[in-house]
């Protein structure tokens, strides 16, 4: 696709949309036209970086958060230049609102630079649907107009609404999240990083009641520690095996390194450059087993919290303010408050809990065919897109092209970021998204 795809619409102007636009605009092509569409008032924030709470820090240290794949120090230099960090402080876990400012400034700079060339156009409006046309694509907007281009890239990120079957659960910070009595007990579905975010928000609001956090295994994320990832080559790593074989290999690798005095984090992080390759080479049966049995363990070791946040969470658990429970919610009765019945994973005993609020922090993955995003929904409804075999996101090729329900590959509608989780597995964080965007830009524009 060289020379033809000069005009590209990016649907979704959150972090992945901005990162993709930045990589596309590196091309010297004077005929390039990039249109970035975002329904929120601000670009570059999306769900991940719209929080204003200073306790909501990035889960990746600043050294890993550059928007550019070929300039990994970009964000770190930006922090240093503005006096927001000093080099002795590293590793720094910056507030997410600071990261939103970084992306905003980056986009402002691009906008100023491209004003003369007309290569970048920003539209603040909700997108309703994408339709293929003989010459490209047409994106219909909520204001009744539409925009056309050679191709469109979906960068709509995480779903804004809780998944189906979460009953009365709401999202922290949504409209339904009205003021609560400071002593009111609450239930959080999930014990991962989103639960930690919810806890920090509640603290900020002066909430003091008990927070019961339920997940299948009740595992809390581990803390970051300053380290040095071990060096691995693809030639070292078993690929395409059954899951148990791979897990055995990885356990041995950690054990050997620990014997040599190396922290397990350095082994987990050393694998990171190969995670997508490992995932893509597994047979579907191994992927399915991983999602069902191993992912919860992987997540708490791989997706860690900043040390300061970990200290706060640990203190809260010890003080009984956060109560992690391994189990599942079997019934919720709504009245003045919610009566929630939870079955313990280990004892199978039922426990009934009265809570004033239920927050959905059960993870960002949900069945894409029930998405609240109208663009994605309409693509699935018309058969132009379908869920991947494990229903983690949309089915896309390794080149980010959408695969229709009849199996045909679209050359005109593509996707980046969390929507592509089924194919790219770890594609929620900037370090992975920027590599995906760099490769896609190179393929589209050379």
């Amino acid at each position: 696709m060289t020379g033809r795809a000069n005009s590209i619409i990016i649907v979704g102007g959150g972090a992945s949309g901005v990162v993709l636009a930045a990589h596309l605009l590196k091309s010297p092509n004077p005929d390039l036209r990039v249109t970035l569409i975002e329904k929120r008032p601000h670009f570059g924030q999306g769900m991940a970086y719209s929080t204003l709470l200073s306790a909501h820090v990035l889960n990746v240290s600043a050294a890993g958060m550059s928007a550019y794949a070929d300039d990994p120090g970009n964000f770190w230099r930006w922090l240093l230049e503005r006096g927001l960090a000093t080099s002795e402080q590293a590793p720094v876990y910056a507030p997410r609102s600071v990261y939103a400012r970084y992306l905003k400034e980056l986009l402002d700079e691009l906008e100023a630079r491209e004003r003369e060339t007309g290569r970048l156009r920003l539209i603040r409006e909700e997108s309703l649907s994408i339709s293929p046309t003989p010459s490209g694509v047409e994106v219909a907007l909520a204001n009744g107009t539409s925009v056309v281009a050679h191709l469109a890239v979906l960068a709509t990120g995480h779903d804004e609404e809780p998944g189906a079957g979460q009953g009365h659960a709401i999202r922290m910070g949504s409209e339904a999240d009205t003021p609560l009595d400071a002593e009111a007990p609450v239930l959080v579905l999930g014990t991962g990083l989103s639960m930690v975010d919810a806890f920090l928000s509640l603290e900020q609001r002066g909430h003091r009641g008990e927070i019961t956090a339920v997940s299948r295994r009740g595992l809390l994320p581990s803390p970051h520690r300053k380290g040095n990832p071990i060096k691995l080559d693809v030639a070292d790593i078993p690929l395409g095996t059954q899951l148990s074989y791979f897990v055995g290999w990885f356990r041995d690798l950690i054990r050997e390194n620990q014997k040599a005095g190396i922290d397990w984090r350095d082994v987990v992080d050393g694998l990171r450059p190969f995670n997508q390759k490992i995932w893509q080479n597994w047979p579907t049966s191994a992927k399915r087993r991983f999602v069902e049995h191993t992912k919860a363990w992987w997540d708490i070791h791989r997706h860690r919290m900043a040390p300061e946040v970990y200290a706060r969470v640990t203190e809260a658990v010890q003080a009984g303010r956060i109560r992690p429970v391994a189990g599942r919610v079997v019934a919720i009765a709504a009245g003045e408050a919610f009566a929630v019945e939870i079955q313990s994973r280990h004892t199978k005993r039922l426990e009934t809990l009265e809570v004033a609020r239920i927050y959905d922090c059960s993870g960002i993955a949900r069945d894409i065919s029930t998405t609240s995003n109208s663009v994605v929904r309409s693509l699935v409804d018309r058969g132009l897109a379908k869920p991947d075999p494990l229903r983690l996101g949309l089915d896309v090729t390794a080149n980010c092209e959408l695969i229709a329900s009849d199996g045909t590959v679209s050359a005109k509608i593509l996707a980046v970021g969390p929507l592509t989780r089924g194919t790219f597995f770890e594609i929620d964080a900037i370090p992975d998204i920027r590599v995906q965007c760099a490769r896609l830009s190179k393929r589209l524009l050379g």
Partner: protein
Amino acid sequence: MLTKKGKYGLKALVHLARLPAGQLAFVGDIASGNNIPKKFLDAILGELRNAGFVQSRKGKDGGYRLARPADEIKVGHVVRVLDGPLAPIPCASRTQYQRCEDCNEATCQVRHLMLEVRQAIAEVLDQRSLAEMRDIAIDELPLALKVQA
């Protein structure tokens, strides 16, 4: 550095890849058809089963078959399971590193180059499926005969 174990394992898998989908082969037949000691082959197939490349059935009609279609199994993936990390010499591996008695690895240029060579090995072997390897022989046999003639 492909060991005998790796070579035998690949030959056994090619043998299985030639069978109609789902059909089982006796270990004895694979061994005699490919000049592999049977005891050794038992051990090799056991490891390939643990890694999920072959399936076995016990009993009188028992035997082995591929666990997945031959075009989904990559040669490099099999070699890693049988021989460990792909490496042209034992010191050029990061996880199963074996020190050379006679040199200092930090300053050894040979090792440095061999670390690059292993990337090239991985690139070739990870691109080729069992089905492709099986078909090389069939495609090129007539050609080889023609050249001889």
